[in-house]
């Protein structure tokens, strides 16, 4: 029954292998192979989600004494939903890449990277135990590294790739300890078995959350995501906006049975802080991709906060029902966010492509008439993210706000304020990019891309519009969607009014404040505030200081000790001892036959003495 799922998993691996082995010089064929693979993944994912059954199965992979590492597939509604998202967004990005990367010199490497990414991501989606998730988790990190590093001749790109990889390693370290601890405490890491019974502990979920902090770029490991924008724009859309960074949220939803209230509180505040922090940073960015990157951070913070807000107890016919509303709200927002953020990123890719790789929004302007299709789809994306009523983001954001309102008013305030900022910076970037007069040569000659560039935009725009209506999703995802919290009565009115006020406040002030011009209005009017926000709270500088002054010195000390004790004492000392013995033994070998005979004689004498019992 699960063969189709395994086929979906192995198909991109096959594609990547074929590209790596045979098509390294045939970029064009590699692109077609990879895109066809993505198309079949999307089709099969849809068929499997809609018509296939749900189930799980595993095989033992490695047995070491009493410890067994198994590989398995757990295909439930959550996995089906995520698989469909990865499939659809992946296909859109592949098609977009056909146009965007058309003239790239290393197309084969790029499309091979996309395929290996699809393989890793689907592996996380289907995995049925934490060890297997970890394996694919690292593979995702690797493919992200490869794709950020695509233009590796640029120092900034290779630095960004290293930064992303190393920052993720920091989080993964906690993740790995969490997995081992979980195994130690529960005797299993299988998700279903953990759901049946497990030890209640605060440390385990928090350590596992470390992995999500790294992969989903939450505070304090958020530094890599904005830098990762050095990669090609479709990569940013696929990996650093819609799917890979959502893997952290997905993993949290997978392990939500392990959660305890204390851990959830930490997770909630981490998410809320990230949402607010990133929204503040996004306001002052001038690079269109950086704005979207911080917006992604902020939305991921939303999802993490939604997850941390936890369950919701409702009264139903006099019976108290507790539902894991955090999972529902987080996954719902993940779904809609995947659609509109991929749309926004691909839209920005279209803009960048049209403007001959100009990324500074202050050098754009007037693109509304030159790139009408990009403008309209981007507008829909912006409307969806700022929560315009009727579009995808409106519903999922309301679900989160309602959950916050019901569980924690302080988080509600933070998230509502973040929503104001979201509306502000998205309207700002939209207005400055598309309105006014062209402010540079490249923007003046901007043009709409070909069909491969526009078609994914249209598909994603449709999804961004309708993605918020739970009713349109087939009934097969009920396992996730029935968990989405819905406000009733006066709460409903409060949330609705809040989100409308937030929207009007944010978008209105942006429209009043930011005129399409070559300079940042905030920088002119309030340079102090601008500098504060542009500093990003000195996270990078603090880490740099820490690495230079603390870690590097500590490493020098360790290296010194290592040179003396390990390399000096143990390794060289041991070798010297053996060498000394060898020197003595070598003296016995003089190369003269009769001398050896004397040794032989001596040996016989010793043997004889031993046999007679003298020795």
């Amino acid at each position: 029954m699960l063969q189709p799922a395994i086929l979906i998993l192995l198909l991109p691996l096959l594609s990547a292998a074929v590209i790596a082995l045979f098509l390294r010089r045939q970029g064009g064929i590699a692109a077609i192979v990879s895109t066809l693979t993505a198309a079949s993944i999307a089709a099969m994912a849809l068929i499997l989600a809609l018509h296939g059954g749900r189930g799980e199965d595993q095989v033992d992979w490695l047995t070491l004494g009493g410890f067994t590492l198994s590989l398995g597939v757990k295909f439930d509604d959550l996995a089906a939903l995520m698989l469909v998202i990865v499939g659809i967004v992946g296909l859109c990005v592949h098609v977009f890449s056909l146009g965007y990367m058309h003239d790239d010199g290393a197309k084969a490497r790029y499309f091979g990277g996309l395929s290996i990414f699809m393989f890793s991501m689907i592996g996380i989606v289907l995995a049925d135990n934490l060890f297997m998730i970890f394996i694919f988790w690292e593979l995702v990190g690797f493919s992200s590294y490869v794709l950020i590093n695509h233009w590796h001749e640029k120092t900034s790109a290779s630095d960004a790739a290293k930064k992303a990889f190393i920052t993720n390693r920091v989080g993964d370290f906690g993740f790995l300890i969490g997995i081992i601890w979980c195994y130690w405490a529960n005797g299993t890491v299988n998700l279903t078995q953990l759901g049946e019974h497990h030890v209640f502990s605060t440390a385990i979920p928090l350590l596992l959350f470390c992995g999500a902090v790294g992969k989903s770029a939450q505070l304090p490991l958020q530094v890599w995501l904005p830098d990762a924008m050095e990669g090609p724009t479709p990569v940013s859309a696929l990996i650093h906006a819609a799917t890979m960074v959502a893997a952290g949220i997905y993993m949290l939803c997978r392990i939500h049975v392990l959660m305890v209230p204390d851990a959830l509180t930490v997770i909630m505040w981490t998410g809320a802080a990230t949402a607010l922090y990133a929204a503040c940073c996004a306001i002052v960015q001038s690079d269109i991709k950086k704005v979207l990157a911080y917006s992604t951070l902020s939305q991921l913070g939303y999802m993490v906060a939604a997850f941390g807000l936890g369950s919701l107890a409702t009264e139903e016919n006099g019976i108290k029902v507790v539902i894991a509303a955090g999972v529902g709200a987080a996954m719902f927002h993940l779904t809609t966010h995947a659609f509109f953020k991929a749309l926004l990123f691909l839209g920005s890719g279209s803009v960048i492509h049209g403007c001959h790789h100009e990324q500074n929004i202050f050098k754009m302007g007037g693109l509304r008439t030159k790139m009408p299709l990009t403008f309209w789809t981007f507008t829909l994306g912006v409307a969806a993210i700022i929560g315009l009523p009727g579009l995808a983001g409106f519903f999922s954001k309301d679900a989160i706000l309602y959950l916050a309102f019901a569980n924690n008013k302080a988080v509600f305030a933070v998230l509502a304020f973040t929503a104001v900022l979201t509306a502000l910076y998205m309207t700002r970037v939209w207005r400055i990019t598309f309105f006014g007069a062209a402010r540079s040569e490249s923007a003046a000659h901007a043009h709409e891309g070909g069909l491969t560039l526009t078609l994914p935009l249209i598909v994603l725009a449709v999804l961004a519009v309708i993605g918020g209506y739970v009713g349109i999703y087939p009934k097969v995802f009920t396992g996730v969607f029935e968990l989405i919290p819905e406000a009733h009565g006066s709460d409903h009115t409060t949330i609705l009014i809040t989100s409308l006020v937030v929207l009007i406040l944010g978008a209105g002030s942006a429209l009043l404040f930011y005129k399409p011009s070559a300079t940042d209005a905030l920088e002119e009017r309030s340079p102090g505030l601008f500098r504060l926000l542009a500093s990003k709270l000195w996270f990078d500088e603090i880490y740099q200081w820490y690495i230079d002054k603390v870690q590097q010195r500590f490493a020098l000390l360790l290296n010194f000790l290592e040179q003396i004790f390990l390399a000096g004492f143990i390794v060289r000392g041991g070798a010297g001892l053996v060498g000394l013995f060898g020197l003595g033994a070598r003296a016995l070998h003089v190369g003269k036959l009769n001398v050896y005979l004397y040794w032989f004689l001596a040996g016989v004498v010793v043997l004889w003495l031993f046999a007679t019992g003298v020795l």
Partner: protein
Amino acid sequence: MIHAGLNAYVLLSALLFAIGFFGVLLRKNTLVIFMCLELMLVASTLALVAFSRFNGTLDGNVFVFFILTIAAAEVAVGLAIIVALFRSRRTVQVDELNALKH
């Protein structure tokens, strides 16, 4: 005819063995060393034959048959090696056969 006792045979055997042994230790010519080795073998067979004769059993004689057979094979191989050695090195002096060391 003097009737020699077992002690005389064993003494002769030991003497022959000692001659052979010191020859192996002290001589430098490989061919001579080889002959001395054979002498040691023959000395031990002499003792075995004597034991067999004086015990009235055939055990020692059976040993001797085997030893002679092995010795014949050994001589064939050993002499062939020495001949080959001389052909390649133009010498059979053990002092000069020090390729293992140098």
